[in-house]
């Protein structure tokens, strides 16, 4: 009986609230009316969406009502830097990889303006995983260079969603950086935190290996084989390290919106030295607590939250750890503030350890060669001798035994005007390789020399040998000269 009475009261109250909402519908106030189906949430007023570049996110929606939200996104194909000395042509939503962050709330009606810059070569479109409709919008957003497409959709499901270009060949568009995140906040917004950041992982496939210099083209075969050269956060190596690191203060609550654009690899997202207090698994409603590493599928996302308790630099990685160490999947969170020795002491002492029984132990070497210290040449004669060995082992296949090269394919080193003109250039070519047309002794060559993995000493030896053979200018190249070029 009591229960029934209560229910009745609630119904009456709801009715009352509904009436108020109805009467004041024109003045941006839907009050606290709840809708069983998010389709029914009405919108009033228009608003231009705030879009941000990574690692920043727009202002939280807070308690605002659902609105008509106008999103203006320009597609730009532009050259950027993958890592020091390595250029790559990125295709971007809004000029950055990942693309601009879009923040909405459930019930918003998004009017999407997708603009393809006239200088672009290719048509593009956008598939937003937050859309209920064919192609996630791709069907109605296919836009030629120099054109703009407009379509609209209502966001019905709260969560963090990936968007990406889906024009054929879709893998290549994604591999070149065409992805980003769109957040749909629940009614009333996500709980407030102190800092929010936007991070997105992506894998890249380049013609050259990791670190090979110059403009690197997309390598289709590597992409199909899923052999990534770069796995990075926010589009390039070092996007969030050093001066670009994200920051926080001790005691602050951090929320990371983490996406994975792929195209191929699944991320094992981990912050070294932190435990996620809360993870919105796969960006949805399910919340897991106390998580060390969360799996983020390609074309998926997660929201992770944690409080930073002690100062220091915390490293964000894909814990498929070779990607972090060798391919760039590293970011940094720098936390400033007071130490808390109760949580983390730091090093307390460095003592001597003498095990009982005292036999000297060593790591099993398994018969493998122990690396010896490099033998250094003592004078020019030794340098010549060592250099000749290295030449015969490494260079002879192309440049031939007497430095004559092969006409049309490999330039000569004997009496070579190109070689003798510039010793630093010669060092640079041995260290970093050379691609493209050069003229040697009046003949044109257009081929590829790969970077040689030689020590400063070895480069000095081999070049000294070359410069002092076959009618060349008899320079001595020292390891110091090589080092100077290497450090340039």
């Amino acid at each position: 009986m009591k229960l029934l009475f209560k229910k009745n009261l609630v119904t009456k109250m709801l009715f009352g609230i509904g009436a108020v909402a109805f009467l004041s519908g024109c003045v941006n106030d839907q009050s606290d009316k709840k809708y069983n189906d998010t389709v029914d949430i009405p919108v009033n007023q228009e608003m231009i969406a705030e879009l941000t570049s990574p690692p920043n996110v727009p202002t939280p929606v807070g308690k605002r009502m659902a609105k008509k939200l106008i999103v203006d996104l320009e597609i730009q194909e532009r050259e950027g830097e993958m890592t020091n000395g390595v250029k790559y042509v990125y295709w971007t939503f809004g000029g950055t990889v990942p693309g601009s962050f879009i923040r909405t709330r459930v019930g918003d009606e998004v009017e999407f303006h997708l603009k393809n810059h006239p200088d672009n070569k290719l048509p593009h479109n956008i598939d937003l995983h937050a859309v209920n409709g064919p192609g996630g919008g791709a069907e109605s957003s296919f836009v030629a260079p120099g054109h703009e497409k407009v379509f609209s959709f209502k966001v019905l499901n709260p969560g963090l969603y990936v968007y990406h270009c889906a024009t054929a060949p879709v893998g290549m568009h994604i591999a070149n950086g065409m992805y980003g995140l769109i957040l749909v906040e629940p009614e009333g917004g996500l709980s407030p935190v102190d800092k929010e950041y936007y991070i997105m992982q992506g894998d890249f496939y380049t013609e050259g290996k990791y670190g090979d210099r110059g403009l690197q083209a997309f390598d289709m075969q590597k992409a199909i084989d899923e052999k990534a050269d770069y796995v990075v956060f926010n589009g390039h190596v070092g996007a969030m390290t050093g001066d670009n690191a994200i920051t926080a203060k001790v005691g602050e609550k951090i929320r990371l919106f983490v996406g994975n654009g792929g195209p191929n690899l699944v991320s094992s997202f981990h912050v070294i030295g932190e435990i996620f207090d809360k993870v919105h698994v796969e960006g949805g409603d399910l919340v897991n607590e106390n998580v060390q590493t969360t799996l983020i599928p390609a074309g998926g996302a997660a929201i992770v939250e944690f409080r930073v308790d002690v100062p220091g630099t915390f490293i964000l990685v894909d814990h498929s750890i070779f990607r972090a160490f060798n391919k760039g999947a590293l970011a940094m969170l720098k936390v400033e503030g007071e130490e808390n020795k109760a949580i983390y002491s730091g090093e307390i002492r460095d003592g001597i350890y003498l095990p009982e029984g005292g036999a000297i132990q060593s790591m099993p070497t398994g018969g493998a060669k122990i690396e010896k210290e490099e033998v250094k040449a003592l004078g020019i004669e030794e340098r010549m001798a060592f250099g000749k060995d290295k030449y015969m082992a490494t260079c002879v296949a192309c440049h031939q035994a007497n430095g004559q090269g092969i006409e049309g394919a490999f330039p000569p080193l004997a009496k070579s005007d190109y070689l003798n003109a510039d010793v630093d250039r010669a060092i640079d070519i041995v260290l970093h390789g050379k691609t493209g047309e050069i003229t040697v002794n009046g003949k044109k060559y257009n081929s590829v020399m790969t970077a040689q993995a030689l020590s400063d000493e070895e480069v000095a030896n081999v070049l000294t040998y070359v410069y002092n053979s076959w009618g060349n200018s008899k320079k001595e190249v020292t390891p110091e000269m090589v080092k100077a070029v290497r450090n340039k």
Partner: protein
Amino acid sequence: MKLYSPVLFLVFSLLFCEVAAQNDKMALVKGGVYLPLYGAENKTVKVEPFLMDIYPVTNTDYLKFVEEYPQWKKSNVKPLFADKSYLTNWKDDETFQGLPNAPVTNVSWFAAKKYCECQGKRLPTMDEWEFAAMANEKMQDARRIETYNQYILNWYETPKTFNNPIGETFKNYWGIYDLHGLVWEWTLDFNSVLISGESRKDVDKDSNLFCGSAAIGASDLMNYAAFMRYAFRGSMKARYSSQNLGFRCAKDVEN
């Protein structure tokens, strides 16, 4: 009648132009059969012998055309036949920017088609264009050659190639330059794949080739270069023009 006469004049001026046929600067493509990426359900297509311009139409060529046929000048052109980006970076009706021997771009399909007709030529069909363009320097069909594909992909990723002069890319098997490496080119039936009338497509209305669906019905999943070409064509309409889109003409072989 008064009402109709301007319309008639328009129709006439669009339909006819003084034909000054010239076969110089054209190369013979001997024709043959080939398997296109789309549209033929794994059936080969026969391409009859035809002549094709060795180079794309240049700024200078096009200036001459608009001088002769002023209805195609930037300020005169009918919006039905060209959108606002038509010759968008020309300073005025008779002043282009960029190199005289750079390919003309920002030209609509209607304009390109008319240009060719006024030379006594026509636009190449998509099959003709694809057939001629699958050659590299040495082979008629280089589509399986890795360097051929990589060359094209690299070009797609190189910005602002529309500023380059004609004739600086490779001379292909047929003696034709710049099919790859400079600008996209209009074809007579550029969007025919997408309005194929094929029942599955018409039912699905899935004509934008987006996402994985582009893989359905394609004859060669490794030909990324061609995928992008078809996608580009599919995004265009006949009155559109684009910074990276030029054209060249073709012609039947006279017996």
